[in-house]
């Protein structure tokens, strides 16, 4: 059987010093692969396991063999094949690992042959990340490099549900380091991000509702260029999805003030990893409101917050009342489909008013709330009309049924009288 192995790899020994050579080529050959035959016979688990694991690796599926990353000559048995003169690298780590992976993954011409859609700036992005900065500037070997997120010998494409970087698995992958208090001890950052994220509305959307557009770690922090969002651009990150609110916020008086105070826009009110589904209780100056952390009831922003809350509450109550009224009429068999159709406009107005809260001015909220209140009022009127009509029909039926019964009784009595 013809075995695809990689042999074009750096036989010219261009590895270290001047950097790695050109990307490897996949060449079909009949020669034996001593890397596999020797390593799978070893009794040391650390050295034997990669052979079995690698059969599931995406690189193996594309025909790349051990030498693509480790160098050496697979056609020569024993330590002679693992000669540095033949380009043998051993286990590449740290900056050498970036070179090994980047040799293919940073070469657009090479990657186009295997995955034309795949980006080729991962190494450049990585160097800009907190991980990459610490590795290159401080020689910090504890930081994540390629194989911490893409486990060596078992790399699968992100679309594979078993992949460590599938959206459902990203948080767990990051937490291997970030939830390990011993590992993170030197960095003085919390280690509860995963615990908090798994309580968030984003994780619920991703894991329970199967919404793979919901964000996980890399959607806010970047993946290869991972870094915490800066105070003045948190809004841009959240605005990738919540664009309407981000636009309102950017034009609001809060935007400049928050930047000046050095507080993160969205996260100040909504939190970061443990973002909860926003509810109206966040607004106003009552219990549970976030406005009251800075604003006092009855003064300036406190007045605006309370007024915005009152408008939203009014609309929600009016919508709820109209909806229940129409439901009662509908269940009783009345035709109210037009009224229910029209009431959809009040729901739209309510959602728009809630988004407009992020402008932090009453007029924006009132504009939508008043529109919704008008729609709800019309629906209430129709609901009352339908229920009034129902009452009228019931009374009419009762009266006519009574009259018919009386008539029947009268007929029976008359028949008896005639018979007697």
């Amino acid at each position, binding site marked *: 059987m013809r075995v695809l192995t990689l042999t074009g790899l750096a036989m010219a020994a261009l590895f270290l010093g001047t950097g790695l050579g050109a990307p490897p080529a996949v060449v079909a050959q009949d020669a034996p692969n001593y890397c596999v035959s020797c390593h799978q016979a070893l009794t040391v688990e650390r050295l034997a396991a990669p052979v079995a694991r690698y059969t599931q690796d995406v690189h193996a599926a594309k025909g790349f063999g051990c030498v693509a990353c480790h160098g050496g000559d697979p056609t020569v048995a024993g330590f002679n094949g693992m000669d540095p003169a033949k380009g043998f690298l051993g286990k590449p780590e740290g900056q050498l690992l970036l070179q090994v992976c980047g040799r293919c993954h940073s070469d657009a011409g090479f990657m186009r042959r295997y995955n034309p859609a795949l980006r080729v700036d991962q190494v450049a992005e990585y160097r800009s990340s907190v991980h990459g900065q610490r590795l290159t500037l401080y020689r910090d070997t504890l930081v994540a490099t390629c194989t911490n997120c893409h486990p060596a010998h078992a790399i699968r494409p992100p679309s594979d549900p078993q992949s460590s970087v599938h959206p459902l698995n990203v948080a767990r992958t990051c937490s291997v380091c970030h939830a390990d208090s011993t590992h993170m001890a030197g960095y003085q950052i919390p280690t509860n991000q995963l615990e908090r994220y798994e309580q968030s509305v984003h994780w619920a*959307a991703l894991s329970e*509702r199967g*919404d793979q*557009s*919901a964000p996980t770690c890399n959607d806010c922090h970047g993946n290869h260029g991972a870094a915490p969002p800066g105070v003045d651009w948190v809004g841009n990150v959240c605005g990738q*999805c*919540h*664009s*309407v*609110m981000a636009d309102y916020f950017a034009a609001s008086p809060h935007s400049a003030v928050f930047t000046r105070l050095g507080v993160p826009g969205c996260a100040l009110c909504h939190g970061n990893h443990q973002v909860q589904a926003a509810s109206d209780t966040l607004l106003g100056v009552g219990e549970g409101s976030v406005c009251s952390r800075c604003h006092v009831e009855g003064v300036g922003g406190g007045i605006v917050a309370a007024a915005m809350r009152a408008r939203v509450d009014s609309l929600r109550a009016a919508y709820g009342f109209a909806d229940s009224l129409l*439901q009662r009429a*509908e*269940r*009783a*068999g009345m035709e*109210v*489909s*037009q*009224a*229910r*159709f029209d009431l*959809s*406009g009040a*729901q*739209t107005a309510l*959602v*728009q008013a809630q*988004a407009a809260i992020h402008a932090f001015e009453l007029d924006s909220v009132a504009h939508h709330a008043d529109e919704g209140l008008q729609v709800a009022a019309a629906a209430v009127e129709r609901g009352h009309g339908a229920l009034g009509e129902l009452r009228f029909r*019931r009374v009419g*039926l009762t009266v006519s*049924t009574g009259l018919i019964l009386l008539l029947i009784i009268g007929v029976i009595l008359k028949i008896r009288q005639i018979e007697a």
Partner: protein
Amino acid sequence: MGNDSPTPSTRRRFVNWLLGTSAGGLAAAVLYPVTRYLLPPEVTESATASVTLPFTVNDIPLNSGKIFKFGSLPGILVHTPQGEFRAFSATCTHLACIVQYRDDLSHIWCACHNGHFDLNGRNIIGPPPKPLEVFTVRVSGEQIIVSRGA
């Protein structure tokens, strides 16, 4: 044989019982639907399967959309730039706002949170988690008939 035949009083009782129970059955047959009418079951109106739109093909220009009533819910009819008629539920799958057609983008768009759907109803940008429900459109002369399912 003659000793076993029923007496006249037995026959009368049987006829009275038969007439009495028939009258009871008749009363039940009349009163039951009346009672059911007065106390209807707790169910909502059955889902509308098909509607003939209150406007014609001439009322909706190319590259435009129009909201219509599908039962008690809003639907949207799109006349695509290619001249096809397509209809979808107009209720956004995010927070149930009513979507609209954007002729500048040739997309269906939800103004509440800037969600976009393509002309197959697929959610392509923004927070909507699912596609819009697709309706079947049939054009008969100038009339447009929209129905749920094939």
